[in-house]
């Protein structure tokens, strides 16, 4: 019994090492930026970082489901954008916004926008699980479809008005805390609870860990993957609506950066692209690494044209560390 439990403890330690590596990266980045810039390690800047990563956090929560299934969703940014534009399309716009839109009551506009993201997710799910298109290709097509829907609805214009509820949640505050940060935390929390404590969450890990074995255990693998893709799309829809309020406008290509940021947040946090390993705690660390990196580089005095390159190199370094940490496994 003692040998079994000590072997368990050892494999637990090695198992958590791959979760520790991203955490070490995060602490290292914070220390470096705090050392290099006095304005970085302040309470108000912490608030900035939280606000800056909120939209990414909502997108990455949904994407975590997909990546844990060993699939990918490249349409996250496009679905967020299309949903945000759809919300504006169903809201009464000022006279100078020259689009032929369909204003609805605010609550209905929100439902219509969410329905848009849901349907796009369903199309992804049908393409991947029923027709059998690899998710990489299917969601690549959806990336274009999402962009296309957005373009058709907004016609090159910029729309400003969104329903009041969304305006509050996207740009308002509650007791000094931005609503968008609260929502992001809630989405992360719910995702974590679903992944860790529900049957569906267990199936997600099992399907990602060994799809064939899940199938031979009587798990409806296609249904699980479909659900993951739809969850991802709806999270993107929520992020897209709040994002429009957060940015103060709805327009084309508004969310383009969130494709890479969303994937990077999940993967840098240590969730395996091959599925079955990782989770929301990893995604949170990945979000913080990304947020600290994006924010910190603005606080130190370097050539702004160099920043993108530095960001890329630091992300690469983080990924390399993760890959080595993930190779460490308990001895068989």
């Amino acid at each position, binding site marked *: 019994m003692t040998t079994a439990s000590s072997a368990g403890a050892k494999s637990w330690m090695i198992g958590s090492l791959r979760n520790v590596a991203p955490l070490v990266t995060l602490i290292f980045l914070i220390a470096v930026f705090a050392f290099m810039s006095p304005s970085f390690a302040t309470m108000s800047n912490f608030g900035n970082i939280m606000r800056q990563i909120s939209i990414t956090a909502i997108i990455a929560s949904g994407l975590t489901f997909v990546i844990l299934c060993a699939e990918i969703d490249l349409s996250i940014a496009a679905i967020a954008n299309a949903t945000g534009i759809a919300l504006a399309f169903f809201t009464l716009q000022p006279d100078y916004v020259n689009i032929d839109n369909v204003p609805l009551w605010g609550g209905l506009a929100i439902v219509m926008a969410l329905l848009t993201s849901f349907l796009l997710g369903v199309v992804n799910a049908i393409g991947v699980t029923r027709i059998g298109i690899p998710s990489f290709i299917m969601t690549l097509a959806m990336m274009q479809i999402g962009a296309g829907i957005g373009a058709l609805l907004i016609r090159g214009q910029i729309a400003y008005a969104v329903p009041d509820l969304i305006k509050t949640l996207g740009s308002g505050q509650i007791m000094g805390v931005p609503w968008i940060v609260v929502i992001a935390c809630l989405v992360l929390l719910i995702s974590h609870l679903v992944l860790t404590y529900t049957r569906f969450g*267990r199936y997600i*890990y099992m399907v990602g860990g060994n799809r064939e074995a899940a*199938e*031979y255990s009587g798990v409806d693998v296609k249904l699980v993957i479909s659900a993951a893709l739809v969850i991802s799309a709806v999270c993107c829809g929520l992020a897209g609506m709040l994002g429009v309020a957060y940015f103060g406008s709805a327009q084309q290509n508004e969310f383009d950066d969130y494709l890479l940021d969303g994937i990077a947040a999940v993967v840098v946090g240590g969730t395996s692209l091959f599925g079955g390993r990782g989770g929301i705690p990893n995604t949170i660390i990945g979000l913080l690494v990304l947020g600290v990196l994006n924010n910190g580089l603005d606080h130190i005095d370097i050539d702004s044209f160099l920043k993108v390159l530095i960001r890329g190199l630091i992300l690469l370094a983080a990924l390399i560390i993760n890959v080595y940490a993930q190779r460490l496994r308990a001895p068989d």
Partner: protein
Amino acid sequence: MIEPSDPPAAPAAGRPLLELEGIEKRFGGVLALAGVDFTLHEGEIHALVGENGAGKSTLMKIIAGVHTDYGGRMVLDGRQVRFRSARDALDRGIGMVHQELCTAPDLTVAENVFLGNQPTGRFGRIDWRRMNRESREQLARLGLDLDPRMRLGDLPIGLQQLVELARVLFSGARIVILDEPTSALSPPEIERLFAVLKRLKSEGRSFVFISHFLDDVLAIADSVTVFRNGELVETAAAASIDKTWIIERMIGRGHHELEETYTGSIRLPRAPSAPPVLQVEGLSVAGAFQDVSFSLAEGEILGIYGFMGCGQLELARTLFGKLRPDAGSIKVDGSARRFRNTADAAAAGIAFVPESRRSMLFGEQPVYRNMTIAILEKIDRLWLRPRREIEIAGRHVTDLGVRPADPLARLGALSGGNQQKVALGKWLTELPRVLVMSEPTRGMDVGAKEDVVRIVTGLREKGVAIIVVSTEPETVLSMATRVLVMRKGRMVHRFADEAIAKDDLLAAA
């Protein structure tokens, strides 16, 4: 023409072409070949027979340069050789046609004949005209009139095999190893293959013919060598022996070896009068098996025996909803079922343990999660209760004798036999109506095999209807109360309420 009715006293007339002396090969600690001497003559078709794991495939992989790490000597044309790779062996004139064809179905016939050797013109441009012309000639020499521009995958499997043979010959092989060449062929295709082999033999080419199909072996081979447990038992001229002679040597009658418990006959019980749990009628999956019918009652264990590739693996998958039948019906407890997926089959009370542990288990997950995955729906509502799962798994781990008996251990850290027990354990909490097992004891040591037999027999006593699919006669005989034999996708024999022995199974398959 060759006269097959010659009474050859000595095997084949040609000079010795390939001589092996004292070949020894180990996989880990297991001795796969224990000092084998083997000679292949020029212009000879030499058949190798033996049960799975007897060593014949290992020996052929050594000859074909696939296994390079072995003990002993190999002499080709009087010169000692040691191949470094399959390419190296092919360069010296030894080629192999695998059971699973190594062709590119999306390329043309000509491209396949020239695979890896395409004739090129200036700037490395492929000379299509020459390639098509030469492959047509090459195929004509095998007596085949094929359009070399056809896509290979559009040809029937027998012709694809001959195209691969043409490729191996075209690469300059004088010795060709054929691994189970007839297993996927229809009788006319077999005749055509044999005609080609005879023609090539008369040109002085030599063949090693590995097969489970003893009728085919006796029809084409000049000499036959029997392997058992990594040793060469005996070589004889094919004309001087018959099927019984071969089977006796394959299973070692008269030798009192410890593990051969089932060489004697066992008595199958009378079929119970209970109503059938599972009824299968006219079930077919194109390209795998045709017109399979049987019924199964509570407390019965149906053994399905057949050689590798006879369609039994696909049959098991069809019963669990992984493959969709093209025809026929499946009834569980009298009501017809159409499974859209494995979840449907599991909901109908069918459980499945596939032949490969890898496709059943989650190596990164703890043992308890491996055991509860199939029953989560029944033990939990919305929220998981890990403590309950661990308790359930802990009980099974103890009952099954899994070591270490720790439901929290990572599955990947367990030995193979213990993993197999976990795979079985996942269906034990909520007993299924029908349990389908494919090769339940493959690769297990004797102790673990006994554990599995004990568990399965226990399930049967609790009223589970069980199907055991296996290519190992011992596995079938150690559990079954009724036996079906499959050959090339069809049911060819049923044993019930009678005494049967291993050689009955081998002779029927």
